[in-house]
């Protein structure tokens, strides 16, 4: 996919109703009905027009507040990560969805060295976010250096709407650097089946 298409899609979502074009009421439309008694409809166009518009000064204050909140949130997330998940032991597992014609994801369970570390049930909105290119951080935790076995169990609907459960296992070596693993749910067109691939990422 062109990444630019994705960017523009985000942009369109961001802008909301920019396709709207609003103009002042036209005085040219004067057709009357068989019952021409005047109603208070004229008030309609004047519904608190003066109070509806967002005050620019308040808008600027709100934007400053939002900016400060975003920066604070960022700093707090960094602090939390440093404190709870130091780089030397950090492991993050992500889930992404590519196409997904042969598999409709419902939930996933994740085990590391036989211990369940995460279990997640997806909402339609989250599935949609994955389908549009979003990547979910399924698990963030700590692991000792050395070799480990990670297993993910995917539950959902497979080809022809049949219940589908599949496990995928991967062995990896945790080093002193933060570990990043991606589990990709992809379509295998030839077999008309989903595949689950692991990919290790390096920082």
């Amino acid at each position, binding site marked *: 996919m062109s990444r630019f298409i994705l960017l523009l899609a985000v942009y369109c979502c961001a802008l909301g109703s920019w396709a709207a074009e609003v*103009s002042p009421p036209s005085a040219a439309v004067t057709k009357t009905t068989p019952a021409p008694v005047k109603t208070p409809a004229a008030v309609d166009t004047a519904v608190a027009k003066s109070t509806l518009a967002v005050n620019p000064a308040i808008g600027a204050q709100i934007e400053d*507040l939002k900016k400060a909140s975003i920066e604070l949130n960022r700093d707090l997330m960094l602090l939390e990560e440093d404190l709870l998940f130091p780089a030397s032991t950090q492991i993050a597992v992500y889930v992404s969805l590519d196409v997904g014609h042969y598999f409709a994801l419902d939930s996933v369970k994740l085990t590391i060295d036989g211990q369940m570390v995460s279990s997640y049930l997806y909402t339609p909105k989250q599935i949609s976010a994955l389908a549009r290119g979003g990547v979910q951080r399924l698990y963030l935790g700590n692991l000792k250096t050395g070799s480990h076995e990670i297993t993910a169990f995917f539950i959902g609907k497979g080809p022809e709407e049949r219940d589908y459960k599949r496990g995928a296992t991967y062995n990896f070596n945790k080093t002193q650097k933060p570990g990043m693993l991606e589990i990709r749910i992809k379509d295998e067109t030839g077999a008309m089946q989903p595949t689950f691939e692991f990919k290790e990422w390096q920082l």
Partner: protein
Amino acid sequence: MAAVKPIALLWAGLVLLPVVAFAKKPPPPSTVADLRLGAALYEYYQNKPLDALSELLVAKARGGILGHGTHPDIMEGGFYLGYGMERTATELFSRLLTEQQSSKTRDAAWFYLARLRYDANDWPGVEAALTHVSRDPSWDLAQDILALRANMATAQDDTAKAERLAQKFDREATWRAYAYYNLGAAYGRKGNFKKAVDNFDLLLHMRLEREEELSLYDKAMTSAGYAYLLNKRYQEAIDQFSQVRLNSPVANRALLGYGWAAAESQNYSLALKPWTALSKRNLVDESAQEVLIALPYAFEKLGRKPDALSAYKQAEKQYLEEISRLNESLKALVTPALDDTLNLPLDEELSWNKYAEDHDLPAQKAYFAALFAKNEFQQQVQILRDLLQMRTVLTNWQNKMQLYQDLVDERDLSRDAHMQRYAQNPYNQQVATLIAQREALAVRLQNAIAANDAEALVSGAEAQRLQTLKQAVARLSRLQASGQATAEQVEKLRFYAGLNLMDATEQEAANRYALEQNLKIADQQLAQLNKTWQRAAAEAQTGVNFQSFRSRLGSARNRIDEQLKRTDRAIEDNKIVLRAQIQDALEFQRARLTQYLAQTRLSVARLLDEATGEKY
């Protein structure tokens, strides 16, 4: 005579309503090349711009998102726009344009700037920005630019230009439907109903599938129906109204228009059908209010005056009930019930109609639907929702900070205890003792092997017996020297010595293995001691980090407290503005209902007067 609102006003209301938001053709699904960028997108697509921006900024702080050039910046700008931070977005795009960027990035940045200027009605600014876009932008961007130019032409009342631009859209572009609808609305406002209908009708030939596209289609058909109605082409008007879905947001307007088209063609019986259906719908809707006096009007025209009188009386009763409900709503505004009224789930998109429908809200709350149809009100409510969400996030952090403070204190205490234990039993002393023991073992083994001395390898009871034997040999030597030793004693000792040597020789391999194992254990103990000491040393160093964490946590707590205070103040200010807007809207609704009520009562009086034979 019955009192109704002029059709023209209905038409005007319809075409003036802003066209709903639409998302472009969804991008083909795929994963992005960087997990952190994808994680930010995942949050954004769930309508969580604060989380999305935070993810993106954390990624930047950790060294940036790799392999994407300036796309993360463009994405960040888009996120800012989505979060209502136009000024920050403008600053970011303007900064990008001062740097050396790829043409794709520059095109995107210029387009975003054009959009921001469009929002500010800065038409020359829009054109100036668009002239910087390259001659061959991507397909999507080209369609977006066309849409922007078409909208701008429409906003400037240049329908001819807007029409030329609309024809340039690619057949696959979703924008086409909106362009034609906007054009139809623009022509309608200019009184050119033929052109309006022509443009609305273009939607008839388009393949529209998504709900928002179907809603647009319903609006177009309703607008076209009113255009025909104003042109006295009543049958065509009825045909257009008939194509509107009955569950559409504009269905009430279509039903009302359908009735008027029938009434205008003197077919009052036909008018009664849609109007009767409409009269059973929720009275918060403007068309449902109006139909209560349109219905008896049709009865009167059909000569069914008793039915008309009965319908007017029913209308009077319903108007009074509705006014009473509105009065209750207005009273509720005085109390802090606003929070409850606007308590839309924060993680859901803002859709009052959907929320009211899903939660079966009391009738008076449904009046807000009219307010929610106004962009400015939606913006104000969105600000409140953003502020409330910020407060939730900050409160969560506030709670976490205490937990983290406790965690740091506990870790620090644990480290201190650990270090104390090691301080009481110095590492060097432990190591020296262990090394001495290990060396003694190694020398003993080495000597025994070199001298081929099986007895040097014995240990435990065997070693004790050997020691006793050696002492006996020494005593016998002293006895022999003094001439006191007997031959029997000498022979006995020689026998035991031989027996001991035989046992030691038999056990030599086992004893040697045991000694080698002991050496290994000593080596392992030394390694373990070394490792433990290194860990202790590392923990001693992390004492500095704990201090750093304490400092960061303290600073964070202060910032959270300050930000919470600012947020709470902003929330209160925002509520005051919202309360005033809601009050204005409710009072307007009440004024309209009161007007309808007065007209109804006049009609009731008129019919009663006619019945008693009085004429004026």
